[in-house]
């Protein structure tokens, strides 16, 4: 790890003015330090924001607010989230390891960089790091994107982001011009030549908090994740699903995929198959097929199509089981 200056500003305004291209905000550090140790990131300055940003979970009339510094362990264990936002609790519980969940913050979780082995290797000049091409496209691409790929084929590593998107979360960020709210759906954006990152956050902006809009009590949700091993692995594919049933009719459906695209991937075609339809195995199969209908597998990741379809079907079946609440 290269040497850096470490500053601890006392206000958010000071923190924001200390941020920029050569500096990074430090909260939990579980992703940033791995990037710095691997020489993928070499900031000249770390801005310690651990005293500045909100931490904690609060149920308010306008929705559930989660401070950016709230740890994954806190999200996993919070009774309000366990009761009303199962997909989020499950995503937190399936993320990383206990040691990481005790440190990692939700703000940092949304901003973590991909785990692509080409991206994480400082000797490889991949497209996401400013290079000309993505070596994964023709190379070792078992873990890579089947949706939204190109120019970068890395997949987004967050489990919680998929669940948060499925709950239509918004977030508040603070920059030099003050605070702004942004829908999480607009926060994530496919990397582009002029912005080789997975979010639209500027280097001098801080994520403050998230808000999940209130939802009717009958909302059901879940998160399923396929991994190479049972714990401490990133998703090969995952699905966050939020449903509301009116009898057996699906009144509301959100399907968001993790592990298959450079950003958390809303499967709108799958949602259309479900919206207003009666819950049935055939309908779930149609939704599962729709979820990957635009997928373009690479040489080594074709297995992600049946895997993703199976996860979508399994999530829908479990959530609409009459015995399920």
């Amino acid at each position, binding site marked *: 790890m290269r040497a850096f200056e470490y500053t601890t500003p006392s206000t958010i305004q000071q923190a924001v003015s200390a941020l920029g291209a050569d500096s990074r905000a*430090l909260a939990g550090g579980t992703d940033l330090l791995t990037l710095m140790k691997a020489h993928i990131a070499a900031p000249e300055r*770390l801005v310690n924001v651990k005293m500045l940003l909100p931490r904690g979970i609060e149920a308010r009339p306008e929705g559930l607010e989660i401070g950016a510094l709230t740890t994954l362990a806190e999200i996993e264990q919070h009774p309000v989230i366990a009761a009303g936002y199962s997909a989020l609790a499950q995503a937190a519980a399936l993320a990383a390891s206990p*040691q990481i969940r005790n440190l990692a913050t939700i703000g940092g979780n949304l901003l973590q960089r991909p785990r692509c082995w080409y991206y994480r290797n400082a000797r490889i000049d991949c497209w996401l790091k400013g290079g000309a091409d993505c070596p994964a496209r023709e190379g070792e691409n078992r873990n890579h994107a089947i949706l939204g790929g190109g120019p970068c084929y890395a997949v987004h590593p967050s489990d919680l982001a998929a669940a948060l998107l499925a709950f239509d979360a918004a977030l508040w960020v603070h920059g030099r011009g003050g605070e702004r709210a942004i829908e999480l759906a607009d926060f994530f954006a496919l990397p582009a030549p002029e912005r080789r990152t997975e979010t639209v956050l500027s280097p001098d902006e801080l994520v403050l908090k998230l808000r999940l809009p209130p939802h009717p009590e009958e909302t059901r949700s879940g998160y399923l994740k396929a991994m190479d091993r049972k714990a401490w692995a990133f998703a090969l594919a995952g699905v966050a699903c939020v449903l509301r049933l009116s009898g057996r009719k699906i009144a509301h459906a959100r399907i968001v995929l993790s592990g298959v695209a450079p950003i958390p991937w809303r499967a709108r075609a799958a949602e259309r198959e479900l919206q207003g339809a009666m819950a049935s195995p055939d309908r779930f199969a149609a939704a599962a097929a729709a979820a990957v209908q635009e997928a373009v597998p690479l040489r080594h990741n074709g297995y992600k199509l049946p895997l993703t379809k199976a996860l979508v079907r399994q999530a829908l079946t479990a959530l609409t089981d009459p015995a399920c609440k």
Partner: protein
Amino acid sequence: MPGAPFAIEGAMTPLRVNGEHVELDVEPRRTLLDALRADLGLTGAKKACDMGNCGACTVLLDGEAVYSCLVLAVDCVARAVTTIEGLGEGGKLHRLQEAFIAADAFQCGFCTPGQLMALAALFERVARPSDAQIMRALSGNLCRCGAYQHILRAARMARDR
């Protein structure tokens, strides 16, 4: 890891390790793991992957298990760090350590301090953890010898004792 008071640039970094107050002169880039091992001579926490993948460096920070390789020493000011060296009390082994010996829960032993600290965090919170809670607490710790079944047996022994 929010909530820590701050370190002052250029100043000594005060830490509380195994109940003792220590002052370190470390660069901001010093990880807690390196500070423990190189600056304090506490070599129980092991440096294996140094990337938060293996769990060999697990210590307690304010009672919670963390990978000390992913924590900066300057971020530990005014927080309680507990390492394997501080797990037993009054020269006596912790009941988890006794159980590891009784169950032969190691082969090479390199992962053992991390396994013990991960379990210690659980046993501190839950007096009689379920098997599922034990396995979950250990899910961030690798054992390349594959002594998992013996480690599990040791944790059950410590619980049922």
